[in-house]
Each structure stands twice: as structure tokens, then as C-alpha cells.
């Protein structure tokens, strides 16, 4: 069986991304089809993630596929000490496709090496979550009509936020400008700055989250500032409420601005923003179904 896995957005060329977005658009028009009839998809969630699992399982169900799997490694042999390789080898014998989430970084790449069937990475620790990146990019494409030449503002935890890092990688093909808003402790790591520099991507860093930054943006990508990331809790208390978007801050923004968030949000977007037509985070989550249908059919080589 042909084995083309989906492990990291960095493995995707510009053409791959455009092709996948085109497919996602097609599935949005035709979400219910029998393309996976007779196929068995394994969802192996070594770490629980209800949102991502439901999104993938909905994608499979709407395409007529069947699902086996587990939602928590505590109920599987890995709790008895079985190594990942053995689990993957075993499931490779049963299913046509593995969708896996794992708490260890690099687990999906390793699984793809030992598996005889395609692997889709549904998140490996703090490393990659490429289906999230694709749905983010599909959302950007849908709301802006293009991926090219956009002003993208990333707000919050830019140090540990893997969605932010992957988005920079995925968007790097489309001539973006990044505005990076983060507290001192959670600034973007140097390796991503070097990445942007080597790809001639302009970026600007800010500590203040102000209307001025918002007003120049086409996309406002909010992330959660996580308490557990701070060594100094005083520092957390200082910044936790600085990066909160409220409706008033959007009074003078561009007409085409859309607000994205990988969810779950805590308090970084005030609830009064939800009714603003520029709030796009719930639609963004729905786009995840179509993006995942596109990924699944792509790795299984179903046209």
C-alpha cells in the first residue's frame, strides 16, 4: 500500500497547501459523500483531545468511513508498557489509516516510519499539529479570498504556542507580514525569527496590544496565555489581562479583518466580541472538518 503520511506542515510545498485548500473548499460544498466506504480509520489518541478527535471522526463519518480506536492511552496496552512501534505495527494490520495524537514530540514522524499505512498527525506534544494549521489557512483563505500578501497579527503566547509556529511555517509561501504581540516572557523564539529572516518575511514585535496594531491587520490570530508557562507568577498576573480583545478595540479596524483563535479560549477574547461579524473562531472550527476531509482523502489518494 502506498504510504504518504501527513506529519508536519513544513513537509508541504506551496502547491500541496493550495491543492489541500482547494479540496477543503470542495468538501465544504459536498461534505457528505461515500468516498471512504469500506475503509477503516483508526483514531489513536494516546493523549485525550476531545475537540480534535470529534473533528476527525466527524470528517470520517461524513465520508462514510468506519472508525476504530481509543480516546485515552490509559485504557490501552501502552499503559502496560507496550512501545509505540508495537501499537502502530498492530493497528497497521487492521486499518487503512491512522490518525494519532501523542504527548511525545516526534511520535508521529516515528509512527510514519514504522507504519505500513498512512499516518495523520493530530498533534505530537508541543511539536506539530498540521491539520490545525491547514484549517487556519483555509479559514484565512476563505475570509480574505487569497492567502497572498496579508498582514497577520499573532497575539499571546508566541513562545510555546505550536499553532503560531506552524502558521508562520505554512504561511511562509504566501508573502505575509507578521505582527507579533507578546509579553516579554512569551516572545517568539529566535529560531522562528531566523526562519522569517531567511524567507524574507517582514515581522514586527510589540509588547502593547493596541488598536494601532489591530487596525493594520487583515487577520488577528489570538492565543491563550497559559498560567503554567510562567516561572514568575507575578509576571503572569501582570500580563494575563493585557492581551484581552474586547469589542471596543475593533471600532476602527479594517472591514476585512477576521478574528481567529485555535480554541479553547479562556478570557483572551471578551464574550462581547462573539456577536461581532468579524469574530470567526467558531466558523474556523467548522472549517476543520473540511480541512481534515481534504487531508484524509489526500493521504489515501482518493480523488
Amino acid at each position: 500500500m502506498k504510504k504518504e503520511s501527513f506529519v508536519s506542515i513544513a513537509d508541504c510545498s506551496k502547491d500541496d497547501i493550495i491543492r489541500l485548500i482547494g479540496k477543503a473548499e470542495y468538501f465544504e460544498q459536498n461534505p457528505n459523500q461515500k468516498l471512504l466506504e469500506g475503509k477503516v480509520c483508526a483514531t489513536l489518541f494516546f493523549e485525550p483531545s476531545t475537540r480534535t478527535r470529534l473533528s476527525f471522526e466527524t470528517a470520517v463519518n461524513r465520508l462514510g468511513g468506519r472508525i476504530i480506536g481509543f480516546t485515552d492511552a490509559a485504557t490501552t496496552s501502552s499503559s502496560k508498557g507496550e512501545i509505540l512501534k508495537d501499537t502502530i505495527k498492530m493497528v497497521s494490520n487492521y486499518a487503512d489509516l491512522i490518525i494519532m495524537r501523542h504527548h511525545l514530540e516526534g511520535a508521529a514522524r516515528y509512527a510514519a516510519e514504522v507504519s505500513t499505512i498512512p499516518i495523520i498527525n493530530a498533534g505530537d506534544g508541543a511539536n506539530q499539529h498540521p491539520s490545525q494549521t491547514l484549517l487556519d489557512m483555509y479559514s484565512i483563505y476563505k475570509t480574505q479570498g487569497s492567502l497572498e500578501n496579508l498582514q497577520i497579527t499573532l497575539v499571546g503566547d508566541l513562545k510555546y504556542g505550536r499553532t503560531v509556529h506552524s502558521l508562520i511555517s505554512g504561511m511562509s509561501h504566501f508573502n505575509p507580514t507578521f505582527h507579533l504581540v507578546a509579553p516579554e516572557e512569551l516572545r517568539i523564539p529566535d529560531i522562528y525569527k531566523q526562519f522569517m529572516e531567511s524567507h524574507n518575511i517582514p515581522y514586527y514585535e510589540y509588547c502593547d496590544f493596541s488598536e494601532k496594531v489591530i487596525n493594520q491587520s487583515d487577520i488577528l490570530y489570538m492565543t491563550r496565555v497559559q498560567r503554567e508557562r510562567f516561572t514568575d507568577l507575578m509576571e503572569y498576573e501582570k500580563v494575563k489581562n493585557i492581551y484581552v480583545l474586547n469589542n471596543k478595540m475593533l471600532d476602527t479596524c479594517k472591514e476585512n479583518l477576521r478574528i481567529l483563535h485555535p480554541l479553547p479560549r479562556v478570557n483572551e477574547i471578551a464574550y462581547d466580541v462573539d456577536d461581532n461579524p468579524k469574530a470567526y473562531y467558531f466558523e474556523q472550527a467548522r472549517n476543520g472538518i473540511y480541512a481534515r476531509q481534504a487531508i484524509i482523502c489526500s493521504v489515501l489518494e482518493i480523488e
Partner: protein
Amino acid sequence: MGVKKKELKVAALENGTAIDHIPSEQLFKVVSLLEIEKLSTPVTIGYNLDSKKMNKKGILKISDKFFEEDEINRISLIAPNVKLNIIRDYEVIEKKLVALPDELLGIVKCNNPKCITNNEPMKTHFKVIDKKDVILKCQYCEMKTKKEDIVLL
């Protein structure tokens, strides 16, 4: 008189490989990376020998053994300026400098405790993304390791 007292500290090789200018402190790591202990041919190990350039150096003379390129390049991480003399019939027929390979399999430990390679019985795999400054990238967790942070397995 003084000149006469200086004798050859290490016996000449008939056939084999002489590896010179190994930093003394890395000598035994080099021995282990090249798996010298598994050889059955005669090997001379010179340790803490005087060197004009390096003050103290190590030398390995390995009889009847000619290393493959990727075998020898393993030592480039810890001893980048090592010189290799390939000897046949007491003559040096080739001199080589070691070079950092493009990929390193099973040699370097990934410093990320949450990397799969530190949690599964498997070989590590690094790509050398910068040969000049020696920066490695883990093929699995994608974390980069700088020269000064490199830990050998």
C-alpha cells in the same frame, strides 16, 4: 645525545589507518565511537603524547583496518580537526580530513526529554543543518541542538 634519546613512541604500521591529532580528552570517546574494542587486529593507542600544536594529543594506529567514510565521519563531532593516514606497506598512500556528514544516526542524544527518541527503544536521527557552526536538528521532535549542547550517546 638529546636527539638520540628521542625515540619513536609509537610503532610504525605496515597496513592500516593512523589517526593523528585527536584531542587527548576526546581520545577514548573516539575509541568507542569507532568501536575499536570490537576489532581483533592489533591497535596502538597513544594517550597524552606531546604535540607542538595541541600540547597533548592522542593517536590511534589500527592495523589492517580501513574505515568507511560514514564510520570515520562519526568522530567529526567531537574531534573535527583529526587527520587520517591510510597506510599500505609502511607508506602513507592517502591523507584525509574528517568531515561532518549530512545526517547522524544513533550517535547524538536529543536534549528534549519529551522527544520520542528518549522514550522508545530507537535510534536517534539528526540532520546537520549548519556544518560551519554545527547545528543539528532532530528528525523527530524537530528541536535544534547547538554545538556546545551536543551530548553523545
